[in-house]
């Protein structure tokens, strides 16, 4: 069977790009890469900075549902992948992703410290990771929400 591939100019590309950018930016992510799957899902990778680390979230957004596909934690300066995970049937939710990132970061920090013979206080690690992730995940939406509440005269 002979297969002929025909390249077609994608006239809808600029619109699709702005659509992907919105999907990423509304969640506080910087869009890295995007693709529309044959099934119609919008697949994209977004990145957020957490003090010397980059968190890369792979997301599949459909009409009725949004999935988290992958999660990668990378050291910004060296580009070394600290942690990488793929998911199946995990619906996307910012709080859920933040929880997964926290678990992974705490685990990595603890095992790193143990391997190198450092003693640590578990609560301190949790508090530190919490404060870093709160900033990375909620700073933008907190500002937007509190602006609204200020307009209501509650603060």
């Amino acid at each position: 069977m002979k297969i002929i591939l025909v390249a077609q100019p994608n006239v809808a590309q600029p619109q699709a790009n702005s659509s992907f950018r919105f999907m990423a930016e509304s969640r506080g992510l910087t869009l890295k890469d995007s693709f529309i799957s044959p099934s119609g899902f919008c697949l994209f990778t977004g990145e957020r900075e957490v003090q010397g680390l980059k968190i890369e979230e792979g997301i599949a957004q459909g009409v009725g549902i949004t999935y988290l596909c992958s999660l990668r934690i990378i050291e910004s300066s060296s580009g070394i992948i600290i942690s990488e995970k793929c998911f199946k049937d995990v619906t996307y939710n910012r709080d859920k992703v933040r929880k997964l990132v926290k678990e992974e970061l705490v685990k990595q920090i603890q095992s790193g410290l143990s391997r190198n013979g450092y003693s640590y206080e578990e609560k301190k690690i949790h508090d530190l990771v919490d404060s870093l992730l709160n900033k990375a995940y909620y700073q933008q939406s907190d500002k937007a929400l509190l602006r609204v509440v200020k307009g209501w005269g509650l603060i």
Partner: protein
Amino acid sequence: MTTQLTSVSNILQLVFPSGARLTLSSDGKKLLTEGYTSIAGNTYFNAISLTDDFVVKENVGVGWLHTFLNGLQIYTHDGKLVAERDFQCFIYSEERVLKEVTDMLTEAIVKAAQRQGIPLNQTQVRNEVFHRVRKVKRLR
């Protein structure tokens, strides 16, 4: 009126930048996207409603017997996603959607204030949210 239309169009451009085709619900309060019917025969679509401060996007699934609410996303007018939640087997009703939106927004506001170290009275926030989310803008 013109200002209101411009604001609605800006918000929709943020939520649906790719220019989805939208229709108005019969009560004029919601914008509905085109449905997508799965192989299983369920139809999925989004419904958008606007209040003075927020844009509420509902993910709706219509099955052969029931209509389900699959997810809710709440945006501010400048396009920031402030709350989102998924649901499973949540049978759709307007009142239940409003209750969920109230709960989600109250929780989001209280948590945001906590993170920023701002004291807020949860009951006062809930009352304010309760009244404000029920003032949905008519789009015609």
